[in-house]
């Protein structure tokens, strides 16, 4: 498939936080790629893991499941945060109640500032 319409995940280090920047659409086709990138990041045992969805245009339940699973895997050892700025990501998180379950921030700066 055309990678431009898939998903890319890049990792950035900010002090004790790892930021996974996801770009593209997260649906059942691309969610496994995101899950793998998140697992790799968690494997580095960062104090904080931030999944930045600022550049995600479509977030389906398969992507929500990855976030919930990441939250579970992170446990007490890694603080897990999500950045969701666009309606395309906030809306599915809000209507499934995950904004209450996960630590969701409106900007990356906010997520790094905590």
């Amino acid at each position, binding site marked *: *498939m055309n990678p431009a319409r898939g998903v890319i995940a890049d990792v950035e280090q900010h002090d004790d936080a790892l930021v996974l920047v996801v770009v593209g659409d997260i*649906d*059942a*086709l691309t969610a496994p790629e995101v899950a793998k990138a998140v697992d790799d990041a968690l494997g580095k045992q960062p104090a904080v893991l931030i999944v930045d969805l600022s550049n995600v245009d*479509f977030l389906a339940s398969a992507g929500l499941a990855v976030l919930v699973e990441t939250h579970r895997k992170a446990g007490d050892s890694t603080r897990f945060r999500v950045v969701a700025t666009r*309606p395309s990501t906030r*809306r*599915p998180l809000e*209507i499934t109640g995950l904004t209450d379950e996960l630590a969701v921030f409106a900007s990356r700066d906010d997520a790094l500032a905590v």
Partner: protein
Amino acid sequence: MRRRERRSTWSATWLHHRGVATVESVTRLRRELSDWIQTVGVSRNLAYDLALGCYEAMANVVAHAYPTGTTGFLDLHARLGKDDITVTVRDHGQWKPESGQGPGGRGLVLIRRLADGVDLLRGEHGTRVDMRWLRH
């Protein structure tokens, strides 16, 4: 051009597709549906809600309608009315029983909250999801 490569057929007021339900095909189909709905001229929010709701219905077909290791057909029919847009997603298999935590749980929550009206009809020969969005 690109239009001819697609397996869906559509006009200004409807889109129809029948094909094998795979994780790849429903991603393609959701993009076709998004392209179609954008030509209709609805709000961005409505276009997004419709694309996500319909995608979840189609993803459920891929994940739950047919036994593991097999594939089956998916029918998508979208129709533009004067006041609403209706979309039907139909399969010819059998979904596993509905449960909040089980397969399709979060997807079904999304469908129910995103659409203005939803009917889920489970039968012996398949499942049909009728979704309706008002063109407000």
